[in-house]
């Protein structure tokens, strides 16, 4: 994973609550054996109609959403299935961060492991962002702040270890493998 220090982008907004991972990436795309190429299928059933044409009224199909690397969504984003294909699809499409008032547990964990940043903000900030898609914002990992165009700086929660891994491009597998002696000791103690 590449280290991440800052993300600066215009926002795209999906003003819906409880966006589940079946919407993010429908199950028919889960037969893949790789992590790549899922961006084409992101939000497939919301993006495309029955004939495969882009739906004009879907926010991400608007010209103004093109190039946006930050997605703002209603609360409880990423609920439902544990499919890691959801953050893979979002990243492959081009998103680097998700902003919401609530992000589901397994999705959050999967996102952090892939360098997709979950940013949880209060209702007021979320409401403003959902009402103002296309706003240019900056997410700073050093200070864990989200900087809005009007100069407001909003702090967001991020566990120290997760932040460290993101900022330094640290792979957790390496960290776990380094605990081999403790794992062996645990196995011995319980056998």
């Amino acid at each position, binding site marked *: 994973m590449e280290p991440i220090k800052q993300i600066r982008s215009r926002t795209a907004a999906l*003003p*819906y*609550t*409880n966006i*589940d991972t*079946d*919407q993010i990436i*429908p*199950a*028919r795309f*889960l*037969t*893949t*054996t*790789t*992590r790549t190429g899922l961006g084409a299928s992101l939000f497939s*059933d919301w993006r495309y109609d*029955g004939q495969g044409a882009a739906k004009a009224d879907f926010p991400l199909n608007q010209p103004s959403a093109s190039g946006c690397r930050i997605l703002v969504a*209603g*609360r*409880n984003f990423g*609920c*439902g*299935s*544990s*499919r*890691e294909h959801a953050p893979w699809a979002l990243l492959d499409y081009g998103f680097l961060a998700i902003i919401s008032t*609530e992000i*589901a*547990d*397994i999705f959050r*964990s*999967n996102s952090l*492991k*892939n360098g997709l940043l979950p940013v949880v903000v209060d209702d007021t900030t979320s409401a403003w962002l959902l009402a103002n898609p296309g706003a240019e914002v900056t997410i700073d990992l050093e200070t864990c702040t989200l900087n809005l165009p009007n100069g407001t700086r909003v702090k967001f929660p991020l*566990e*120290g*270890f997760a932040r*460290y891994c993101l900022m330094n491009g640290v792979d*957790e*597998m390496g*960290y*776990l*493998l380094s*605990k*081999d002696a*403790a*794992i062996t000791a*645990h*196995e011995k103690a*319980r056998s």
Partner: protein
Amino acid sequence: MKTMFQKIWERHEVVPETADTPAVLYIDLHLIHEVTTPQAFTVLREQGLKVRRPDLTFATMDHSTPTRTEQVFGGVPFSIESAAKQVAQLQTNCRDFGIELLHLQHDQRGIVHIVGPEQGLTQPGKTVVCGDSHTSTHGAFGALAFGIGTTEVGHVLATQCLLQRRPTTLAINVTGKLSAGVSAKDMILAIIGEIGVSGGTGTVIEYRGSAVRALSMEERMTVCNMSIEAGARAGLIAPDDTTFAYLERTPRAPKGAAWTRAVADWRALPSDAGATFDREVTLDGNRIEPMITYGTHPGMVMPISGNIPVKHNDPVFDKALAYMGLHAGEPIHNQPINVVFVGSCTNGRLEDLRAAASVLRGRKVAPGVQMLVVPGSQLVKRAAEAEGLDVIFKSAGADWRESGCSMCIGMNGDNVGRGQYSVSTSNRNFEGRQGQGARTLLASPLTAAASAVRGRVTDARELMNG
């Protein structure tokens, strides 16, 4: 004074959590299937890693597999080529890494959360993980069981451990007792209706109270299965004599002196009297009615006898009802339906099939309704056939299949058509879950069978008393 969750967590800490680092938690049982593992094994191959504990890893095939006999046993190709490739990939990975696999034609293959318990692999006090959010099912045995993503599957394969931050605890007390004709599925739907689809986020739920105690193991699995639909990390039910009686009959539970030691250990697991939870919610089990979802997530649920709620200034609610073709303020009872699915890790066990069969016995599926009955495992299938349940289903006009996840997730070609209403004993009614444009109504096996007979949403008690 400790909760059961606390006891299990502390026993499995390889390295405790600190302010700066998550805990390293040891995993006693890693269940795997074909969908969430290919990329994890690729990482192991790329890094030259072996599976640390193949003896604690167990594989089955369920999500992508066909349920038609000719495709499972008759050499007819899978409907979906990428599904066939994915299944073959699991076979290769299990062979290369030395993991026991219930392959496609194995006579004990089944849905992962049905197989673990029926084999006796799932046991009280264990940590159990799987790349599937319904891993919460195994909590019915007093195991700490939760779903993980593919990257974490790789972590567990390579190190038998996970990095975890400690969740909070939520006690859900269900007092009284379920009434006749009211199922465990109705109980968990009522709970999700009460606390909402994010009411359990960040928590491990412990289900307590007389109504929970009275549940059979299969009923407890139904309840724990849908913990994730409330956003919870896991759901637990304390082990007791009901649990031990079930496990004693399973092939892989401890035997002899090891069994006696295990039971003594397990009896110490339940939460201590006086242990406190971060939050508690109480429901009256006597008042739970048969439930059904009307919207596009499991929290949009109501008693079958009720009316669809009315909400003002709620465009997301309106959008959900528009997708479902339903209307606020109207009853859902008598809603015409097209498809009925009995199966899934929620309600695909023998007692579920018996319940559905009890309604279908001597009756027919309504004209124009397609009913699919998919046993949760090949063991469940054979047990059902030994009791003649398959004859009841087929005589009624339902389709009886080989086991698998099937129409719950619709990855194998078993799908609900666009605009069709499906009463399903599965766990998710998200838009498009069972098929693009499908309209899923989640319910119990009794409700599903009764609705199949009448071709409309029906409370099974109307048929049972007639």
